[in-house]
């Protein structure tokens, strides 16, 4: 089963839920797809046994063959190529690696070369397999790295995907082709507003979902009312608790010191399976 943990609003507790679930279930693989700011390894402290570079393809232009006709730059939908009378400039950060420039070049002057955008790291801790991506600082596009992390997926395990915040393409890439999405939110106006946008994305994608309310007790009851009205199951409430917050601040997953939560998280998984 492939479960994605997402939220819309940042800082609601996605990683907390993903990591504590990983430590409560058996035979888990955790994929941290928040490649801009991966945090699950900070809480889990895995032993890393493999680091692999992740590359995308960008065009390389042969000055010998190019006649500066400009067809490549005209074709490029992302403005990643600029052709001047005697030179061609490539802007790698803008390139989506579609390969179109190579196809349209009448002189076969374009080949593709690899360019590193980040790394993926694989590790293990307490029986949990973890794979996470780390986007190079200054790099704009997270989606190719998210796809690379997801390629490491082992479907014979319970796969937990820790998604990035937001409701744009990075979320779509993370949640695409997963069986179920756990939406972690907080009972505040910000939490609710961003939850609603995320619910729309999941409906468009046809992914079934349920909600976890984190820091329950703060804010108001509007998230509860919304879930009831929209018929979205409320899977679990994690109270606003000083001990949980304090453990998090130190980077300690709360189930390690509050083992009674393991059973609750296992029950949540059973509820999702049903």
């Amino acid at each position, binding site marked *: 089963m492939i479960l994605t943990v997402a939220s*819309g*609003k*940042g*800082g*609601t507790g996605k*990683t907390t839920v993903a990591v504590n679930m990983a430590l409560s279930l058996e035979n888990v693989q955790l994929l941290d797809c*928040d490649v*801009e*700011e991966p*945090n699950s390894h*900070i*809480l889990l402290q895995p032993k890393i046994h493999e680091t692999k570079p992740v590359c995308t393809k960008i065009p390389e232009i042969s000055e010998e063959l190019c006649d500066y006709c400009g067809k490549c730059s005209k*074709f490029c*939908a*992302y403005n990643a190529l600029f052709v001047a009378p005697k030179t061609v400039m490539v802007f790698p950060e803008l390139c*989506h*690696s*579609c*390969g*179109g420039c190579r*196809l*349209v070049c009448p002189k076969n002057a374009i080949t593709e070369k690899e360019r590193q955008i980040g790394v993926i790291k694989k590790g293990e801790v307490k029986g949990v397999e973890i794979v996470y991506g780390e*986007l190079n*600082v*200054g*790099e*704009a*596009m*997270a*989606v190719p790295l998210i796809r690379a992390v997801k390629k490491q997926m082992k479907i014979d395990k319970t796969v937990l995907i820790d998604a*990035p*915040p*937001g*409701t*744009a*393409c*990075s*979320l*779509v890439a993370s949640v*695409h082709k997963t069986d179920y999405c756990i939406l972690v939110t907080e009972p*505040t*106006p*910000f939490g609710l*507003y*961003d939850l609603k*946008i*995320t619910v*729309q*994305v999941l409906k*468009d*994608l046809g992914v079934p979902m349920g909600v976890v309310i984190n820091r329950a007790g*703060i*804010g*108001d009851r509007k998230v509860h009312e919304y879930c009831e009205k929209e018929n979205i199951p409320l899977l679990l409430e994690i109270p606003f608790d000083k001990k949980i*917050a*304090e453990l*998090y*601040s*130190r*980077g300690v997953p709360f189930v390690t010191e509050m083992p009674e939560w393991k059973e609750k998280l296992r029950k949540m998984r059973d509820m999702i399976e049903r």
Partner: protein
Amino acid sequence: MVKEITVLSGKGGTGKTSLTASFAVLTQNSVLTDCDVDAPDLHMLVKPEVLETQEFKASRVAVIDEETCIQCEKCEENCRFGAIEKHVVDPILCEGCGVCAYICPVAAVELEKRVSGVAFISKTKYGPMSHALLNPGEENSGKLVALVRQNAKKVAEKENCEPIINDGPPGIGCPVIASLGGVDMGLIVAEPTMSGIHDMERALGLLNHFKIHSLVCVNKYDINEENTARIVEFCESKGVYVVGKIPFDPIVTEAMVAGKPIVEYAPKIKVSQAIEELWERIFAHI
């Protein structure tokens, strides 16, 4: 040039939006932007009245005409995004590159412009505001952020407002980079947790990469003072000025529920005083 500052954090949920709204109250002559276009929240605190709405069309999507298609599958073979399956385009995966339309031997593929979101120019009781809403699941958030900032600059010049305060998105990728290009300063809102420290370091790395002057403030500093000390130490070692520390107070959530910036909702409390001092110091830097 109008001075411009971007509030960012790396990690989400550290308090960027609550701080930005308070800064607006304290300056009264700023232009606010919400650069978190796919999960915008600032409007809930500053209650903008929309004056102008613009459709944002930045991308295209491929559409295959069933009747013309001869099912040769060349488009599917050449699509790098896996967006074509059995002669049908999945608009969610399509990035609008146009390779399929180019490769199609019978011109069955058309690229249609798609509306990716809307941009707004508004007024609030604290000054003008430029913001937007990306359609759910869309890409091009970076381009929409660029449009939001462009609109803000126009308004700032027209109405003679300064500075522009950008409420940035979480992360360090595309939309964050778009909210930083050419700004005078980046203010990182850090939280004293292990994750918060890690993410702040990456956000600082990003500001450094683009050679943008950076300041750091620590929000909810008293939830773990040991970690706060670590943040201060780390910043000092990098020559980054820690411009203020704000205590934790559940009343900040109350203000959010009430839909008001904290410095307006409870001006006398410690949190609000800390924000006021923080803003004074930032303003002196601009």
